């Protein structure tokens, strides 16, 4: 339903509405939009404490920056707790079936380049049943912003392991521990030729806004992995990069054109060691000059891939931020404009000509 009513239980400890960074990008002449313009009247129904609330607040806060009226924004989701996201955004929305959101969204985005199309998906939805649609949307560079809420668990179906759960994970479906080796979503996306790949953390409001901003600015498919805490079935999975006291030590923030440093005082960093491999170093020891300078715009994706493998799991120092951001033709864009023009002028005449194409004969 449309309307600006914001009936959901707000302020669940994730900062107050209104304190979000105000963007400096151009806003249309109409009354500036606010977070409230993007909040639907539906009651939010996630578990209290769920990381999804924080993401929702961040996304709603960020949206006005886009300068696009909510009427021209479409959210498309699959099934899962993350999939409920669509109901809380006061935009157009499709809550599809499990795993198929990228395909649904491809239909929306390719036929309507005037719309801003966002996909929200969970780790099961996007990487288990929906893995194929995801990698194809990425290689095609369909103009979609794809947010993967990775909680390393199946929330909605009550706690089975997911393709991002760690090896040996004990869950309802794996009482003796899982046997599968997990995906690293960022590496997978890079292997699938994604043009924009980033990672952020549910509760990190500023970093999330920054990341969404970069994703929105990217032309083509933007893939953003968001570490999301499921406090009911997988609490603490991302504490290393999320909990106060630990995140300061472990978040390696990637910024294009900047040295890759981390730690409270930037005292640690990433450098290329002997044999050409990336290593975590003490800046004091390695020297400033040795530090890697991040290049997100490098067309060749190997650096981004290597960075994604600095941490196999988010349990120690882990890169977040934009891994890759390069230009490539946007799927369907050109044709969309062409078609739009064409269609306006089509009528009976063209149709008649079509039917008469090829050989005809007349009986009188």
């Amino acid at each position, binding site marked *: 339903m*449309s309307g600006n009513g914001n009936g959901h239980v707000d302020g669940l400890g994730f900062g107050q509405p209104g304190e979000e960074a105000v963007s400096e990008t151009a806003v249309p002449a109409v009354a500036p939009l606010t977070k409230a313009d993007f909040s639907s009247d539906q009651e939010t129904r996630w578990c209290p404490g769920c990381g999804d609330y924080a993401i929702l607040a961040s996304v709603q806060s960020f949206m006005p920056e886009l300068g696009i009226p909510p009427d021209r924004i479409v*959210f498309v989701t699959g099934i899962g707790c993350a999939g409920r996201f669509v109901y809380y955004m006061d935009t157009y929305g499709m809550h599809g079936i499990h795993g*198929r959101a990228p395909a649904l969204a491809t239909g929306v*985005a390719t036929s309507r380049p005037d719309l801003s199309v966002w996909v929200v998906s969970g780790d099961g939805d996007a990487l288990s049943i929906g893995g194929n649609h995801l990698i194809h949307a990425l290689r095609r560079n369909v103009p979609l912003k794809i947010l993967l809420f990775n909680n390393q668990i199946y929330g909605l179906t009550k706690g089975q392991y997911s393709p991002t759960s760690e090896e040996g994970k004990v869950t309802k479906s794996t009482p003796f521990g899982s046997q599968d080796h997990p995906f690293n979503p960022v590496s997978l996306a890079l292997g699938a030729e994604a043009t924009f790949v980033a990672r952020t953390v549910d509760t990190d409001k500023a970093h999330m806004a920054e990341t969404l901003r970069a994703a929105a600015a990217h032309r083509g498919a933007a893939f953003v992995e968001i570490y999301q805490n499921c406090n009911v079935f997988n609490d603490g999975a991302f504490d290393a990069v999320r909990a106060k006291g630990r995140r300061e030590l472990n978040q390696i923030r990637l910024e294009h054109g900047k040295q890759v440093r981390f730690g409270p005082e930037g005292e640690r960093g990433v450098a290329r060691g002997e044999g050409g491999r990336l290593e975590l170093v003490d800046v004091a020891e390695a020297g400033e000059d040795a530090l890697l300078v991040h290049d997100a715009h490098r067309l060749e994706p190997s650096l981004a891939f290597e960075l994604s493998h600095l941490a196999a799991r988010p349990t120690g120092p882990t890169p977040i931020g934009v891994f890759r951001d390069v230009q490539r033709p946007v799927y369907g864009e050109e044709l969309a404009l062409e078609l739009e023009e*064409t269609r306006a002028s089509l009528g009976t005449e063209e149709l008649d000509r079509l*039917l008469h194409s090829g050989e005809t004969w007349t009986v009188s």
Partner: protein
Amino acid sequence: MVVRFAGDSGDGMQLTGSRFTDATAMVGNDLATLPDFPAEIRAPAGTPHGVSAFQIHFASRDILTPGDHPNVLVAMNPAALITNLGTVEKGGTVILNEDGFTQHNLRKAGYDSDPLEDDTLDGYQVFRVPMTTMTVRATEGIEGVTSRDAARSKNLFALGLVSFMYGRPTEPSIAWIEKKFDDRPAVRDANLAAFRAGYNFGETAELIAVTYEVEPAPAPPGTYRNVNGTQALAFGLIAAGIKSGLGLFYASYPITPASEVLHALSRYRRLGVRTIQAEDEIAAVNMALGAAFAGQLGVTATSGPGMDLKSETIGLAVAMELPLVVIDVQRAGPSTGMPTKTEAADLLAALYGRHGESPLPVVAPSTPSDCFHAAIEAARIAVHHRTPVILLSDTFLANSSEPWLLPDVSTLPDIDPGFATGPNQDDAFLPYLRDDSLARPWAVPGTPGLRHRIGGLEKEDGTGNISYQPENHDHMTRLRAERIARVEVPALEVDDPEGDAQLLVLGWGSSYGAIQGAARRVRREQGVSVATAHLRHLNPLPANVGEVLRSYERVLVPEMNMGQLVRILRAEYLVDCESFTKVDGLPIFTRDVIAEILARVGE
């Protein structure tokens, strides 16, 4: 069916033709042949004078002549093409030995420009096959065969290819080759290899034989063209895109025989068509549904196996109540089955092949040209009623062609998308508020103030909010059934010229031609009184079907399945309809229906 083999005198066309004739006689077809070789003993190779041809007319009914217009021409070189193309029926099939079309040969045949590149072959179904190369390759390694010798076996390649297309058994031909070249093992092996290579190429490349058999009725005046079912379907979808102003969004994953629709449509950007080759059938139908939400005419097509994969998303479309056209060009199943053969065994799957109660309209075209109108009809229902519609074509319809009296497109009714443009209840917009036909509003993204969210969870009627309330679900389930039941479909028309028939032959889909042909024949030749009727709408059924069925003593329903429509009719009307079932991958023939009719009215 008239097939003409044409090549150079040295190409062995007579041998090929007569061998094919034998194989054809063997499967019980009636036939007549016309060998047609040059007057000169040995005319200059490659020239029109040197062309040797062999024509065979075969069919399931009595054949009186070797046929006027070949339906299929096999041409081994340009000379064969230039001399024979004129006789080929419009829209017929031309199989070319691509290797024969050298500059040199073109010149000798008298072509100024390359007929493979210019518009000479427009309007024909053309298969270009490098027969010589393939034959040479297939015979490589056979001791004692030079590549020159090998090339001479290409007529056997052609025989193999056409044998595959018409489902002729290979054993007799193999035995014949073995016997014939008993004393020349190298030639024998080369010919065997060529024959097999041709046959296998047909299978691998999934070449489909075009067979269509209706006795033509007298043609009313007007402009005609030939179309096959694939083309007509594509034209119909384009027409619906234009008539609705929506623009056609067609997403599909290749599969025989539905891929041909993708190929046909992908050429029509200039008519506002977007085609997408998706990563699979599930993606294709989701893309089409997404496009529908975005305000396009969303269409997807596939064949058997792909329908299974689309079923979950079709169910989503039922819940979302969005327009969507899903085309199933049925082929012989189950599973991969026989991809190039026809069947009409997906009717029950179309009606019931989704979990839960998820009713939707089903339409089936009756002839190749009717695919045009059926496509428009499916789009109309989808758009007006905000519902997925399944259109059931089949391999036979898709590949058969017939002369088509071109419709006056200005008289085709517009399809009004009737987009929602503003609030529909006071200041609010309720996405599941309904009109008289129980259809909900279609509000496309970008429309100010109509933002809403839809999905596959049960929705509260009116608001569209998620609802787990028992009464609401019961209400919505019945409402979804009712709104499909209310789709207006024309009454079933019965053709009962004498008015005294006791037997009604009721068909659906591509059995139309055979049933009409059979009825006309038995009326004319046997003086038998028989009524016919054809169901174009399989769901909802026309209101008068029960009444019609009950007004005949016996009802015969010929189907290319195990009796699926009969199940529906029996359940719906408790009428003891009788099945004639045929599941051999071939269309229903006039002779089949004649036999069934006579068995019932004979004594």
